[in-house]
């Protein structure tokens, strides 16, 4: 039994990164195609990100003369590795691979690492554009961290018990079932805050100030090319996957197998596919549509937007949840 368990774990640990990269790129492809359709364009084929990665790997890897070479070369790997690592702690339709070894707070910390890697890489590449980009990335990070942590705290706060920070626990106790009217409104606000945090976390329009193409020429990425850029590119895909999974795990943890009366392996497969579907839908709403519908903010508006508007929204959500615990206004 134990041997089997370890074998399974090792196998999954090898398979998951590959799947994460594959699915991350696929998500990027879907996102690009969808946005293209929203803009009345044909858009690239869905497999385009794969072609991009293949092409990037075949290109020369240029390191700027004045760059700090080891940081410059290491950061793309760190970025990709840490993005994949998040997935080990998130339930993907089945309990997380490292369930019991880390909780939501750890996930929060790991989520910072890819951004930190980008910042370090940007500073190490010695270009003024990258420096501006890195500074902006830092500011963005500081901005969205506040609403993000409020959301996470509120949810952990609401759930009873000592392991309320465990994602496995959260996803097996869907929040929507236990809240009353006030809590429902609170949860909606929290979900909205999390959805607005997503583009910031993933550096997408309107919060892509760190990579603003027209302003600072892709910012932190400006000097990267070839293999290093490909790694960042894949990390971007994996990050979308990870963050969308996080939203799904917290807010939409329902599985489909009881509905279809499936058990055993079939149930696992059905749940997993359903989970994938949920991730795609969450991505469409939190990345694609937002990305297509608005213009890029200035860095100052990003800070005030996150700290004042979104944080306020999340705080009100928290307040409503607290009231809900006190007054227990039920639906009927």
């Amino acid at each position, binding site marked *: 039994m134990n041997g089997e368990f370890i074998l399974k774990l090792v196998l999954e640990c090898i398979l998951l990164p590959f799947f994460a990269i594959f699915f991350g790129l696929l998500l990027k492809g879907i996102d690009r195609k969808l*946005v293209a359709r*929203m*803009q*009345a*364009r044909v858009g690239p084929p869905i497999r385009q990100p794969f072609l991009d990665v293949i092409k990037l790997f075949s290109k020369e890897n240029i390191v700027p003369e004045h760059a700090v070479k080891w940081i410059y070369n290491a950061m793309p790997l760190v970025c990709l590795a840490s993005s994949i690592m998040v997935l080990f702690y998130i339930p993907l339709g089945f309990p997380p691979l490292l369930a019991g070894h880390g909780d939501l707070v750890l996930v929060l910390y790991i989520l910072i690492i890819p951004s930190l890697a980008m910042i370090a890489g940007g500073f190490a590449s010695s270009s*003024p*554009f990258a*420096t*501006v980009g890195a*500074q*902006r990335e830092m500011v963005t990070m500081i901005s969205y961290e506040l609403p993000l942590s409020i959301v996470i705290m509120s949810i952990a706060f609401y759930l009873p018990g000592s392991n309320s920070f465990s994602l496995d626990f959260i996803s097996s106790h869907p929040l929507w079932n236990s809240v009353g009217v006030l809590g429902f409104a609170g949860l909606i606000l929290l979900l909205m805050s999390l959805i607005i945090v997503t583009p910031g976390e993933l550096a997408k*329009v*309107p919060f*892509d*100030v760190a990579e*603003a*193409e*027209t*302003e*600072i*020429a*892709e910012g932190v990425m400006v000097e990267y090319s070839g293999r290093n850029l490909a790694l960042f590119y894949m990390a971007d895909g994996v990050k979308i996957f990870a963050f969308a999974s996080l939203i799904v795990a917290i807010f939409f943890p329902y599985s489909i197998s009881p509905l279809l009366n499936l058990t055993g392996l079939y149930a696992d497969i059905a749940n997993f596919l359903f989970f994938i579907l949920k991730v795609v839908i969450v991505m469409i709403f939190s990345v694609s549509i937002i990305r*297509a*519908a*608005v*213009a*890029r*903010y*200035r*860095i*100052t*508006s990003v800070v005030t937007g996150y700290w004042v508007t979104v944080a306020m929204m999340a705080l009100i959500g928290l307040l409503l949840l607290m009231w809900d615990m006190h007054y227990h206004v039920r639906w009927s």
Partner: protein
Amino acid sequence: MAHEYELSIGPIHPALKEPIMIRVKVEGEEIVDVDVIASQNHRGIEWLGMNRNNAIQSIYLAERVCGICNFCHPSCLVMAVEEIADIEVPERAQYIRVIQGELERIHSHLLWAGVAAHELGFDTLLHYVWMVREKVMDVLELVNGNRVTKSIIMYGGVRRDIKEEHVEHIRKMLDYYRNAFSKLAKFFLEDKTMEKRTREIGILTERDAIELAAVGPTARASGIKKDVRQDFPYFAYPDFDIHAITPDELTGYTVGDVYDRIVVRLLEVKQSIDIIEEALNEMPSGEIIAEKKLVKLMAKIKASEGEAVARYEAPRGEDIHYVKLKKGFEPLYSWKVRAPTYINILSWRPMLVGYQIADIPIIAASIDPCMSCTNRIAVVKDGKERIFTSDYFHELSVKKTRRLMK
């Protein structure tokens, strides 16, 4: 105090796409100083017009000063030559010229609107506006035979008439734009993110605009009622009731920021629609060109002597061509193009200082810069760029004046 460092936007930069360099000193995100270094690319168009080409060939060369305003530059040249050679242009031709010029204004302003949206990272709006712009491009192709270069103007008139069956298409296009206008205005002026990025950004005060001699929509957005079509009407414009458009017509007040420049351009699209409509209704019949025989025309231009300055309200502002002809000399004896952007880039400095790095693209784009018209001179010798002093230029211009006066 934050660390101060320098950023070069350009000569090659994804925001500008044309060779010009803006050196900005920034403190953190804030811009403290701006230097514009033009002339990264020189094409020698004026030289070709004065040496290689005959007068007719120069029309097509002028058409290529700028791909977007490919009607205003040749028109300006043609107007100057017509004045020297004393060529009377038939009434119908003047009306056709007005229609062509306004069609160009519509397509140019819409193109600009798309670019502005792109600078703000709003690509959906870019694609939407350019989708709307396709309509006028289709009409241009229908009327002129090609989507972009019109090749329609000729000394003494136009080369092709607007056919009866084309008129109907143009009218349909006008209706289409009347309907599209409200939508465009909504997307550009009511969107919260757009407003945040353009309101109170890149302000050019009326005083600065006057002092820097800003032209076109850039000046009008600062509240200066200045429009060549209104002040010194050419072509058939005296027949129309044209007034310089300022942003307060729509919003009630003038700020002089990027938002106002968007307002002015949108209103000008509307104005152009009305002008075309009126021109189509009032267009007289008759000849479209004064001298059909091109050989005769060329001989006439070769035999005339004199100099003239022509002014034309291009989509970007006032375009000026100075032409001098000499008897027996086939090319233009002297030709000087002053494109609107050449003047307007000066206003970048007051617009940029005090704002953020993020605002550079949209502020730079807000004057609708067209570098291709702007580049003048660049001497690179032995790998070193030679810097000219103003004394040297003064000496050169004195010499040139002497030569011209001979």
